[in-house]
């Protein structure tokens, strides 16, 4: 294992972390800041990817596909918020779990009903395809660098929105005491629709961006959902920095664990068994990480409240 390969794998870990952040960004708003357990978040991610794939198939433009993804997911989000979620803010988490679980069923099968049962095609735009050579001679796909860029931009925007704007303050106030912020004259209902739609749009954006290098298929959202929850919880609910740090930790653990654990076991086991055992442990690694973080800091790395 050469140093350059190690460096490349670390870069891959970081990259996968930022990509995870991008996927978790919308959930950070909805779950982290609004305090709503939205299991259907993965579905919004899927909606974005499908809208992008369908648009790209018709128009051939990646940019239009992204716009469509944002619009479709935001619209789906706003609709869901007005019809369902709005009635659940003052209920406990359990009702939210059941309702959004039901939404997963509706979204998944609805998507399959509209788009059929087979994966759709969505590809990287010409201008962003292929590898570039980084300093040190690492060949790295340009598109992945683009995703890192997008992830960081989204992180910065979110941080600014939540921590620095009055809108952010109001959302957080609403999470503490919805009735009170309304009684002080803030139209919290409309604000929440807006924020929910924004969270959904971010999910859709991630779905489209990531969908271009993955498979656009029904059910693509659920694994992402779990990962996104892991990321936010590790970072500490309500904290954007936390979500970014959590995402990068998870990305590194996942990538490096998958590569190095089998090699470590290879030192004293035969290769086939080592790669199996190593891979088995690697697939548990991020959950071990999450449990360890929570046992050590019960409200996540950056979280204050519980």
């Amino acid at each position: 294992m050469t140093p350059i390969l190690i460096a490349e794998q670390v870069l891959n870990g970081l990259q996968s972390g930022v990509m995870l952040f991008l996927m978790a960004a919308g959930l950070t708003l909805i779950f982290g800041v609004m305090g709503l357990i939205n299991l259907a978040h993965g579905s919004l991610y899927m909606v974005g990817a499908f809208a992008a794939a369908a648009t790209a198939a018709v128009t051939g433009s990646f940019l239009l596909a992204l716009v469509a993804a944002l619009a479709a997911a935001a619209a789906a989000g706003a609709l869901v918020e007005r019809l369902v979620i709005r009635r659940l803010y003052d209920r406990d988490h359990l009702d939210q779990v059941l309702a959004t679980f039901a939404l997963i069923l509706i979204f998944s099968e609805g998507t399959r009903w509209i788009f059929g049962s087979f994966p759709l095609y969505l590809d990287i735009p010409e201008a962003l395809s292929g590898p570039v050579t980084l300093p040190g001679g690492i060949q790295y796909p340009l598109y992945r660098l683009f995703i890192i860029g997008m992830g960081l931009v989204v992180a910065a925007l979110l941080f600014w929105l939540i921590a620095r704007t009055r809108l952010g303050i109001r959302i957080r106030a609403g999470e503490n005491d919805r009735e009170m912020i309304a009684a002080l004259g803030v139209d919290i209902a409309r604000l929440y629709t807006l924020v929910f739609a924004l969270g959904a749009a971010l999910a859709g954006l991630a779905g489209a961006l990531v969908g271009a290098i993955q498979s656009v298929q029904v059910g693509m959202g659920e694994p992402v959902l779990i990962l996104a929850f892991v990321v936010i919880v590790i970072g500490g609910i309500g904290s954007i920095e936390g979500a970014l740090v959590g995402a990068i930790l998870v990305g590194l653990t996942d990538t490096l664990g998958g590569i190095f654990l089998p090699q470590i076991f290879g030192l004293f086991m035969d290769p086939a068994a080592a790669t199996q055992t190593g891979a088995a442990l690697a697939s548990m690694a991020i959950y071990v990480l999450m449990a360890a973080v929570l046992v050590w800091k019960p409200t996540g790395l950056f979280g204050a409240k519980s």
Partner: protein
Amino acid sequence: MSRERLLGAVVLLALGLVPLAAHLMGEPFTITLATRAAILALAAVGLNIALGLGGLVSLGHATFFGIGGYAMGILASHVQNYEPMFEWPVLFEGSTSMPVIWLVAVLASALVALLIGLLALRTSGVYFIMITLAFGQMFYFFSISWSRYGGEDGMSIYVRNGFPGLNTLDPIQFFGLCYAVLCLVLLGAHLLARSPFGLALGAARQSPDRVQAVGLDPKRLRLVGFVISGAITGLAGALFADLNRFVSPTMFSWQTSGEIMVFIILGGVGRLFGPVVGAAVFVMLEHWLGDMSEYWHIWLGVLLLAVVLFARGGLVGLIAGRERAHD
């Protein structure tokens, strides 16, 4: 008798009588469905102790369900394949006897619940939801790659395990067994909720500060509640494995945890018969809607949504009124 108890009695009676009728009319599959409902209800009754009484929203109860299932799978597969489980210090060949399997399932899931509880109960609220999920996922991925016991293929046990004095292969007899276990556990849960422990655990959910101030340790109360809860769900897992004569990692998946939780919310959180009603209705819906259309999940989703939005307190709440019983 309060309306809620009346409803509970009716549901329990129906759950007992329908399979009996089906047996007389020679429709064994209805019995299988009822057995499935009874076992899933049992799993949910277990979770309801942590969730309803203790306020511990565990999204990792599939862990215990799976452990119960694997207890059955591992014990029985060794007998099936003539490979003793261990020969030292004494020869143990595994077991195909349900009482033994149940004991192992309950002890193993209680032990794991104790360990998970010790760590997970350091957190609370949403963090607790997620840390229990994390443990569930660990077991899930572990079982997928644990090739000794089938990995993701799982294990088939060709013959249902035995129970002294019963022919468990006869659907109605196996149902009777599961039903009896469910009734016993329900009775236990009923007593538990009213017992000093139940009172203290309920108070620890509502006001941990108060519980501490009267000299009780809310963490320990929760831990004990979590262990009892996990053990019951583990028992249900062993029965479920025997119903299907099959175990696989899906028993550990987060969707399984989610479904067990859905039964409770659907039926009514913290209500004695909530899990029973929830599981029975869910199994029926799955069965009927599945026949209706290829896209039946949509309708299932719509129905579940309707329940959350319009029936606060779940189905039991809808029928028996919103207030929980106080006496």
